[in-house]
């Protein structure tokens, strides 16, 4: 079959698909899943994961009575903020929140014995995967972007006008990078945990293995590093942390790549993992008694 035939077949396939229906189905799925995931008491510990640094910084701001901090300290606080984002949010907070949110999308419905309702409607299972993934992404991104924004503004609020100048100057670019990195981390980890939940009945243990992999990936050859989410995120972090010794493994960038390559790379990895999920969902059967 020639390339032209292939393109023609792809075009015909695309033309035959009811994209509008898929779009409306994704919208309904996202709406239902967001309500189910975001506004429940069961998710309180995820809010805590996101808000712990915010609360710490806020406490610092409220109880520091020494007046506006010295502008010279901005650089130090910028590194502290970088540490919070890179070491806490990217390594722990977003990781565990995504583990909870995305593994629950399908596995939770198996536990609650409600997944059959999703399988008995005229929705392609691929659309179901995409809808649920987007819902998880909306929840995770909304939560952690809010938290990162709050951390950022609280961090510089105690510097008075100097802080304001910094936020509107170099700080704005850093904020943009942090928001981008946070969103990418949510979708990257989200895709990984969604796939794990379709592969394993208990995705917690594989999740811990993934965490180990994300930590030690920098000591592997560069082609292997590309299979880790943090490989791409590290290239997008605007402030490098002065880490030394074994801790440098969290921040070291062995082979720098351009930011757009890192973004594209992570998006490609996410799409590849989602494609795997679409394949896995077709194997899924409703056998609640086996859960």
């Amino acid at each position, binding site marked *: 079959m020639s390339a032209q035939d292939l393109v023609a077949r792809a075009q015909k396939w695309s033309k035959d698909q009811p994209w509008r229906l898929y779009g409306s*189905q994704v919208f309904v799925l996202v709406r*239902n899943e967001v309500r189910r995931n975001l506004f429940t008491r069961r998710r309180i510990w995820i809010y805590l994961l996101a808000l712990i640094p915010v609360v710490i910084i806020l406490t610092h701001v409220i109880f520091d009575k020494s007046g506006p901090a010295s502008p010279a300290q901005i650089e130090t606080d910028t590194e502290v903020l970088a540490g919070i984002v890179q070491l806490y949010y990217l390594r722990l907070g977003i990781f565990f929140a995504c583990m909870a949110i995305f593994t629950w999308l399908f596995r939770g419905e198996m536990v609650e014995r*409600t997944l*059959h*309702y999703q399988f*008995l*409607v*005229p929705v392609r299972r691929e659309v179901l995967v995409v809808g649920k993934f987007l819902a998880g992404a909306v929840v995770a991104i909304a939560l952690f972007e809010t938290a990162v924004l709050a951390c950022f503004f609280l961090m510089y609020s105690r510097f008075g006008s100097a802080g304001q100048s910094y936020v509107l100057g170099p700080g704005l670019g850093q904020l943009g990078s942090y928001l981008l990195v946070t969103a990418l981390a949510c979708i990257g980890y989200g895709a990984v945990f969604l796939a794990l939940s379709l592969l394993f009945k208990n995705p917690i243990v594989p999740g811990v293995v993934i965490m180990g992999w994300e930590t030690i990936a920098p000591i592997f050859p560069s082609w292997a590093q590309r299979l880790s989410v943090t490989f791409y995120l590290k290239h997008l972090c605007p402030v490098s942390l002065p880490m030394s010794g074994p801790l440098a493994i969290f921040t070291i960038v062995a082979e720098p790549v351009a930011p757009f390559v890192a973004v594209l790379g992570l998006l490609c990895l996410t799409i590849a993992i989602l494609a795997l999920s679409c394949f896995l969902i077709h194997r899924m059967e409703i056998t*609640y008694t086996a859960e």
Partner: protein
Amino acid sequence: MTPDARQIVFENVSKFYGEVLGVNKVNFSLQPGITSLVGPNGSGKTTLMNLMTGLIRPSRGAVCVLGLTPRQPIEFFRQVGYCTQFDSFPPGTNGYDFIYWPLRLHGFGHDQAAKLANEALERAGMAQVARRKVAGYSKGMRQRVRLAQAIAHHPSVLVLDEPLNGLDPMARAESITLFEAIAKQGMHVIISSHILEEVDRISDRVVLMSSGYVVAEGQIREVRREVRDHPMQILVRCSNAARLAAAAFELDHVVEAKILNDGRGVLVRTRDAEQFYLLLNKIASGGLVEVDAVAPADDDVNSIYQYLIGSDGGPA
């Protein structure tokens, strides 16, 4: 229209859960009307329904519903409605939302989905309590709201797993009337039950199941005849087994009389158990044979049939 486009076809379908048999070598095709799947618990009724609706895949064979398979979900699930036995609901949902949102996934707009949801709730007798949380419903109400969801999109095939469970007599009668009305519109209604009596009168045909096998299938009269003609095994523990075997052989309806290896009993296969028992009583009362125990020797179709609907084909 080809025959397949109106039928539900099972072609040599088997389903194994690991090493456990779900159903084995199922072959049948169903015409529109009410079909009842009847069998004791664990006989494979739910497995068959789950296969029919794509919730599970066959280990072997193929299932085709109106010429469609679950691999074409958009076309397939517009035609099929399934009221499962799973008594679970999305957390926090109310009766109306439980029906409205799946209709939106069908592609209906807000107005049409709302209209269909209200209509289905009305038909299931749930309109008054539609805005209440499902968690506060009684078992019968939960059953009816699941039924409402299954019929809301006006499917051509309605699959109902034990739909009368938990319903009070009034709701039961209303549901049966609803099933009959749907079937009269030329649709398939597949109902499972472990009590044939409750679906006997409304069924156009019956599929009798036992231990994962379809043991009889067809119109209710045919099934009764088929089952009645099937030989039944009876194990008799007794002294003088040779004498009993010889007497049994003189009866026309006895197909086989085998003396057990230990010589202390006979395994009899007969088409008329009642007549054989009469003979046995006669021999025993005459003192020719001392009977220690008599028991049906297998879990065959006859014993299942007796369990389900009684030996004379009447209600159990």
